[in-house]
């Protein structure tokens, strides 16, 4: 009897899972119990509101920086479309949210990151609508926050600009997947060992895979950041963040 139910469950799972085996790195559609979907979603709302306000203000005060905003969003668009092989023998993709977080602050990037996640959830069956809140929290809230904080800290410590950008982008990338592991471990604590055992497991899957990708993202962000600095000095000085003396002093 037990064997039979086991087999039925197994076959049912296979049928349900097969189509979603397409590779993707965010939490998959339907794979987070509703309580968690709602909780993470609610946590994101204040950041989205702050982000909309911040983008509105930036665009009104300096209409010229809009082109940079579009480019920061586009950068996240490109990078999160690139699934790159990693040392663990599986693939994952960078997030590209560090650049925007450094330029426009973490809240603005929440909105841009959300757009990327929506596009992927709706058209690519990558991530999902029910898991949008959780994925937005990891990629569009926690990632950019860490990027921004790291950038400011390295600047405060008078580190060189390239190092600040590199560390901001790569640690923000890594943080996104550490949070993803946390979210899954919270929702699926192991029967033996509970949360910590699950966390270890998911970290091994997501975070370790992400290490080389984090380095790549750091490098790519430094490259595009340098290009923006050399072509768009004017816009950068308009962004209040830089007039505080951070960037210009480091030149």
């Amino acid at each position, binding site marked *: 009897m037990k064997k039979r139910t086991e087999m039925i469950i197994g076959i049912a799972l296979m049928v349900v899972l097969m189509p979603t085996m397409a590779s993707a790195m965010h939490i998959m559609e339907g794979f987070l119990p509703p309580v968690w979907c709602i909780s993470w979603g609610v946590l994101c709302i204040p950041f989205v509101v702050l982000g909309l306000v911040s983008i509105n203000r930036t665009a009104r005060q300096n209409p010229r920086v809009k082109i940079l905003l579009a480019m920061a969003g586009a950068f996240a*668009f490109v990078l999160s*479309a690139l699934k790159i092989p990693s040392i663990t023998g*599986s693939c994952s993709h960078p997030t590209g949210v560090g650049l925007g977080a450094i330029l426009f602050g973490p809240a603005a990037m929440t909105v841009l990151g959300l757009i990327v996640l929506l596009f992927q959830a*709706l*058209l690519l069956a990558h991530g999902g609508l029910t898991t949008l809140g959780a994925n937005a929290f990891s990629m569009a809230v926690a990632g950019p926050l860490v990027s921004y904080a790291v950038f400011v800290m390295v600047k405060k410590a008078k580190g060189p600009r390239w190092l600040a950008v590199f560390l901001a982008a790569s640690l923000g990338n890594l943080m996104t997947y550490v949070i993803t592991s946390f979210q899954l471990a919270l929702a699926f604590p192991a029967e033996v060992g509970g949360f910590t055992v699950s966390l270890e497991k998911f970290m091994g*899957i997501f975070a370790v895979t992400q290490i080389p990708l984090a380095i790549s993202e750091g490098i790519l962000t430094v490259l595009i950041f340098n290009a923006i600095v050399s072509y768009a000095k004017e816009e950068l000085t308009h962004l209040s963040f830089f007039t505080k003396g951070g960037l210009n002093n480091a030149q």
Partner: protein
Amino acid sequence: MRSKVIINLLLVAIVVILAVAPLYIMKDAEFGGADAEAEKAITKIKADYEPWFSPIFEPKSGEVESLLFALQAAIGAGIIGYGFGYLRGRRRKQDEGAA
């Protein structure tokens, strides 16, 4: 100026190596998505878990999916290219104006 170009090329080379090296180091790996691994882990932890929602739209095949991913990258790259073209053209114009 010249050394800057060399440094940039070196940086790009590192990114390429980081992406290609795993293919040679892990010869037998499948290189599936990290999330598919997570699905396996979830079903191991909680064997009776069933996804309670499935994607409304799913690409019909790997080919269609890669088309959409390529489209996503292309849109992004197009916007970035337009932005740099615009900024570069503007700077050149300013230089000419100043001269």
